């Protein structure tokens, strides 16, 4: 930790910080994710604004101690303005040499690095490709390094418990958690009761983890390694309220699906197939499984989409969650939902492609696949979530639109949103959009494709209902009656009707709010998970004296009315996205505007400074008026 983030020294000697980024890192079997998540929850519950970002390898267990096996969990916490997980670290807790090596370049000068020195053996150093022990040369002089015997002290505190060395060793993450909870005082009682619940099936681990957690805490208390405690400034408005919980994007999606189906008064059916980073949506939903929530693990993504569409055909809210390669397999079924005009919610948690690509890393490169990845004229709504908690709102909105307009809707999330987390309060279900099923009109003869003149949506006639028996399918229709037709006039009419139906959705969509400076010289446009970095970059740029504004698009298809005029009203527009310019292609083709783009395809979310630097270049006198 650097002293420059300390905002004040309180009367009790504690140093208060307003913005802290800390990372726990270690081997992928070290319990890093659990430790990091718990620390984030403690901070959030206490009233801090928290963003988290886990990173872990694709392999379940790379060789122990190797660089490939490093798992990390980054937490940024503060009182306000915390929109991202932080560019650089104020503090690193490194449980082995490999995790130090992997993360040290992200640590600020003069910041704190706590290392488990017991792991810095010749063998581990070699695995981490260190020629010299970094604790013994001068390579870490730029940081304040605190070597701690985490392993030894963990073992010592568990002497006589009869646990095997292996099991004892696994407890050492609780030592680190204890030490950090001492440093940033969080009530140990909260951790203790959590340990008791979390490990209740294995009482021996409850005792062991409690002991080790306490040992870590005591170590902080007695060793005087650190001259002081730190306190993250808290925001009274954020102190945990009843019903508030810490959610990842994937959890929020699952909850959004349950809420939407309840709101509509119909069953939820989710067909899924395991795929990183979307699997947790299906797993989370299993907790809610009952007569009204059906979760089905299919044999592949095609079957996941097919079963969900079958459930929609039978009157349930059909939904599925997947990632890019799975979406590719689902496209034929999504297209069937388009022509059959049935609701279907597809949540695509994007990862870095192409092909299997970098499966545990984030990217926004499925946008054009979602938009245009199907045969024929096949427009569907595509919405994007901006933050983990926003995944809930967008999913509910997607279900609302899917049911109201009888169409598949794709929700775009990504690895970053799927795994990062923030505090979220479950809304009252009655505050959600009123999701009404289109009933079959009783005053006219039934025709399966008779449309609501306003929305152009057909009614949802469902097997089990008497008198509305009909056959639907993938062949072109002849109009209201839904009979098969190969007539050119019918085909043209149906293509246009389906397109108009989707275009009509824009009447329900507002332009996104403009943040930042009025009369800005430059507008940053983003979509999805870049929200935090773009917002923070805009704030930083305006603080630095520039005039910059930003918008984050939630609705990519259809685009909100008036977006073209809005873009035209700025001298410069920069489209920033985690791909090589997919929204940029869409906006340029739609509005014939010379937009600039900022791309990143490194499997990592934007750092704030990557955006500010690009904007500063665009606004510098040397390039003003010129294309960059």
């Amino acid at each position, binding site marked *: 930790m650097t002293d420059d983030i300390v905002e004040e020294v309180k009367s009790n000697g504690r140093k208060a910080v307003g913005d802290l980024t800390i990372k726990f890192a270690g081997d992928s079997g070290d319990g890093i994710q659990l430790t990091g998540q718990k620390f984030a929850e403690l901070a959030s519950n206490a009233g801090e604004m928290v963003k988290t970002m886990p990173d872990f390898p694709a392999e379940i267990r790379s060789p122990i101690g190797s660089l490939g096996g490093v798992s990390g969990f980054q937490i940024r916490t503060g009182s306000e303005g915390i929109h991202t997980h932080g560019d650089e670290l104020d503090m690193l807790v490194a449980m082995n040499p490999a995790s130090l090596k992997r993360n040290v370049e992200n640590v600020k000068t003069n910041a704190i690095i706590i290392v488990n020195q017991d792991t810095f053996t010749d063998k581990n150093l070699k695995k981490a490709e260190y020629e010299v022990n970094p604790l013994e040369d001068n390579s870490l002089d730029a940081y304040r390094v605190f070597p701690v015997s985490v392993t030894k002290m963990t073992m010592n505190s568990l002497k006589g418990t009869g646990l095997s060395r292996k099991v004892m060793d696994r407890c050492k993450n609780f030592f680190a958690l204890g030490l950090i909870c001492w440093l940033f005082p969080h009530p140990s009682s909260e951790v203790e009761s959590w340990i008791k619940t979390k490990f209740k099936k294995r009482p021996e681990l409850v005792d062991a983890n409690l002991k080790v957690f306490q040992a870590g805490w005591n170590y902080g208390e007695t060793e005087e390694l650190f001259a002081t405690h730190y306190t993250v400034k808290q925001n009274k408005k954020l102190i945990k309220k009843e019903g508030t919980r810490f959610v990842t994007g994937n959890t929020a999606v699952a909850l959004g699906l349950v809420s939407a189906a309840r709101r509509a008064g119909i*069953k939820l*059916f989710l*067909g899924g197939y395991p795929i990183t980073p979307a699997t947790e949506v299906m797993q989370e939903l299993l907790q809610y499984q009952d007569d009204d929530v*059906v979760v*089905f693990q*299919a*044999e*592949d993504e*095609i*079957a996941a*989409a*097919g*079963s*969900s*569409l*079958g*459930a*929609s*055909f*039978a*009157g*349930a809210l*059909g939904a599925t969650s997947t990632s890019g390669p799975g979406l590719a397999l689902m496209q*034929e*079924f999504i297209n*069937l939902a388009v022509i*059959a005009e049935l609701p279907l919610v597809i949540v695509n948690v994007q990862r870095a492609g192409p092909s299997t690509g970098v499966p545990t890393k984030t990217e926004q490169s499925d946008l054009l696949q979602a938009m245009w990845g199907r045969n024929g004229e096949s427009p569907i709504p595509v919405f994007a979530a901006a933050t983990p908690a926003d995944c809930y709102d967008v999913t509910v909105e997607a279900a609302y639109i899917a049911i109201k307009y009888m169409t598949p809707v794709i929700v775009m999330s990504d690895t970053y949103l799927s795994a990062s987390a923030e505090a979220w309060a479950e809304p009252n279900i009655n505050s959600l959009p009123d999701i009404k099923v289109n009933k079959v009109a009783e005053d006219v003869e039934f025709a399966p494709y008779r449309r609501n003149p306003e929305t152009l949506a057909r009614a949802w006639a*469902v*097997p*089990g*209902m*008497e*008198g*509305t*028996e*009909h*056959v*639907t*399918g*993938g*062949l072109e229709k002849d109009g209201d009656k839904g*009979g*098969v037709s190969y007539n050119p006039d019918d085909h043209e009419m149906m293509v246009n009707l389906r397109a108009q139906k989707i275009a009509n959705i824009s009447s329900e969509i507002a332009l996104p709010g403009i943040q930042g400076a009025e009369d800005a010289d430059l507008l940053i446009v983003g979509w999805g998970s870049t929200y935090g970095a773009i917002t923070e970059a805009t704030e930083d740029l305006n603080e630095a004296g520039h005039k910059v504004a930003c918008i984050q698009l939630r609705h990519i298809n259809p685009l909100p009315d008036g977006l073209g005029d809005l873009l035209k009203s700025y001298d410069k527009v920069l489209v920033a996205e985690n791909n090589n310019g997919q929204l940029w292609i869409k906006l340029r083709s739609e509005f014939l505007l010379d937009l600039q783009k900022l791309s990143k395809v490194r499997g990592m979310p934007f750092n704030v400074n990557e955006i500010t630097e690009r904007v500063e270049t665009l606004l510098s006198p040397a390039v003003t008026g010129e294309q960059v």
Partner: protein
Amino acid sequence: MNTQAEPIALTRQDYLSSCDPKWCPGCGCFAILRSMTSMFAQAKIPTHEQVIISGIGCSSRLPYYSATYGFHTIHGRAPTVAMGAKLANPDLSVWVVTGDGDALAIGGNHTLHLLRRNSDVKMMLLNNQIYGLTKGQASPTTPQGLVTKSSPYGAVDKPIRPVLLALAAGATFVARVHDRDVKQMEEVMLAAQNHKGAVFIEILMNCVTFYDGAYESVTDKKTRSENMLELEHGKPLIYGENGNKGFINKNGKLKSVVIGENGITEDDILVHDAHSRNAGLSAQLSLLEFPRNPYPIGIFRQVDEPVYGEAK
């Protein structure tokens, strides 16, 4: 959901839509549509509680000709749609109509998984051993050596045995019927309708345009008794014009024998046991193929097992 307290007696005609079938004149599909709708009437299923789901192919057009709910989906994937519809509303009666290309080539994986889950979905595979809708290419059940548009020097691939595949997947109701015996089709379909769990019925069906006569020597009335082995649970495996041929177990294999020759009596003939949990005999029977052996027709397997999605 609306359910009729006292269903009005429906006839076969009530299950036919106003849409005239567009199959080639003489296609086996006509007889199958007839049997299916007749079975619906016998089973007294209200039209609004019946769902027919199909994939792509000539046989998959069948839902359009039925007055029930129907979904003509995409190639090979009908079992997945059926699975979702059944789980969303377990009160529905759900049938999948598929063909040899649809269910065994592009949709092989879904067929396997539908059957192994023992979901209460009935599947009938109309096997004409050829791709009809695309005008005559080799299918997964085309016999080796057959010249088709995609096998000008004769089909190379070994054909799949649909019944053996269904048994291997653990289907709890497995049968084979043919399009020349409407009465038997109805009986087996009705038994399938009353079965709780995954049903697989292979229907030997003649494609009049692209592979006419594929089953002629088996299904023709004149040669049927000699070339077909009628399976009936609890009855001996006897066939032949004079009813004097049958199967015994020799060295773990089925062997055809003549009653009255070499000291063989009717008591030596194996008795068909479709209700055994052990599908071994059924699997052996599924390996019998014309012309080396008579072709078994009837119910191979019918056992009760826990049904997917229902409380045990």
